[in-house]
């Protein structure tokens, strides 16, 4: 077993264990922290595939920005064990059934897939390097790339509009 394979198995185990801990943790702050560990493990996988750009952007965007905002919200809501709502027994059963159905669909879909027999080639290929990725994005895939940027812009405008509405509502209320 080479060093790449040892790292692969270690990272896979880490990712799966942390993913289970995300949903198993009682405290939502711990869940967020476990989710950050998952992102790090996945970034490690990207590094093994020689996709350095993807690895570091995954950390910057998900672990560095989105999870900080998650943590923000959870800290401000101040969730405690005492404030946890009592769950309905039937809701739990429904959840188990729905999860089981999803598992069935996933297994059925992946059972006949061709990918199960072919393993990813580690440490080779250089499409993940920033230069090649940039060239591919701005030549072959320039239209999808630009369309997705417009999508982001519309989301941004939407957020600004939502934020504006509330503040004007509040000032009307204050002036009234």
């Amino acid at each position, binding site marked *: 077993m080479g060093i790449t394979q040892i790292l692969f198995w270690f990272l896979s185990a880490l990712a799966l264990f942390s993913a289970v801990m995300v949903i198993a943790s009682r405290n939502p702050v711990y869940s967020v922290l476990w989710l950050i560990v998952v992102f790090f493990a996945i970034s490690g996988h990207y590094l093994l595939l020689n996709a350095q*750009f993807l690895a570091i952007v995954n950390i910057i965007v998900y672990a560095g920005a989105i999870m900080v905002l998650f943590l923000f919200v959870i800290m401000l809501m101040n969730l405690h064990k005492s404030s946890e709502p009592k769950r309905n027994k039937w809701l739990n059963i429904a959840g188990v059934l729905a999860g089981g159905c999803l598992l069935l669909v996933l297994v059925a879909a992946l059972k006949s897939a061709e990918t199960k027999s072919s393993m990813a080639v580690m440490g080779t290929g250089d499409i993940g390097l*920033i230069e090649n990725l940039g060239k591919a994005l701005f030549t072959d895939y320039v239209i999808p790339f630009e369309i997705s940027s417009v999508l982001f812009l519309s989301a941004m405008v939407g957020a600004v509009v939502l934020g504006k509405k509330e503040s004007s509502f509040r000032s009307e209320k204050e002036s009234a």
Partner: protein
Amino acid sequence: MHLLSIDWWFLLEKLVLIMVIISLSLVIAMYTTYAERKVAAWLQDRRGPNRAGPWGILQPLADGGKLFFKEEIIPLVSSKFLFILGPSLAMITALLTSAVIPWGTSIHLFGREMPLQIADVNIGILYIFGVVSLGVYGIMIGGWASNNKFSLLAAIRAASQMISYELAMGLALIAVLMLAGSLQMSVIVQNQIDHGWHVIYQPLGFVIFFICALAECNRTPFDLAEAENELNFGYHQEYSSMKLGFYLFAEYINMFISSAVMATLFFGGYDIPFVNEASWGISPNLLALIGFAVLMAKIFFFLFVFIWIRWTIPRFRYDQLMNLGWKGLIPLSLANMVLTAVVMLILKKLN
């Protein structure tokens, strides 16, 4: 010596380099606290620390010793694991950045060429960004785990400030990337040795980057997370002993590392100004050491400016801070980026 298809000499060499750089950062951070007090005393016409050793030179050791022997208090209601994780994360993220900074050219020892850089990765600048964006966690987790309203408020202030100023910092750096044409730190330094320092081409970018570095290090005038008159003591209110020391110390390490990043990206790194050192014909080892000393001199200059600003300029108000970040620096750095790109394209067409 090959086992598990790893070059063990390579590993050993990097391990030694990592140990040297980390202990160097710690020692310099330690003596920056001394420098801070001495410079403050000088600016305020006082003597400063002068009891421990000649000219008070042992003062940082005495401070460290004191912090180690203080009683360690962990609040009963706080989450103990997160309470300890907070300062540890602050320290780790402060030290991680030093991995991609080129500290000098190569040293030749025992027939091997040893570059004075831990990892010359393809994505050097993005790595720095990644670590900087993780720096928020130490403060946020510590502030929350303290279970104290003041700590939580200070932690949220620090986090929102860091997120706001990261944007302008990144946009200011894009102009540098366009000049250098690479994200790799060694290429950026080599580009400056060949074509002159980036600060000449990017004065505005440097000013924006410097202001953002002040904000990222939580230094005055951006130290709202430690505003005593509003928040008692800030996010480390409940901390005592060396855990408090870690938080205070991480700030000085951050200062040291951000000075190193500024020197590398804008002031030529280990380049000796005004001379062509390659034509001297002295041994490469000596040249590497001289380059390292020059880089250190640049870093010490920035550290002095950091301290100078702290004892000269008062703290911002919170709305002023956010206005400067979002309405001042981000549009300015966007304009700088577009201008750089346009000028570069025009020059390319003319040639």
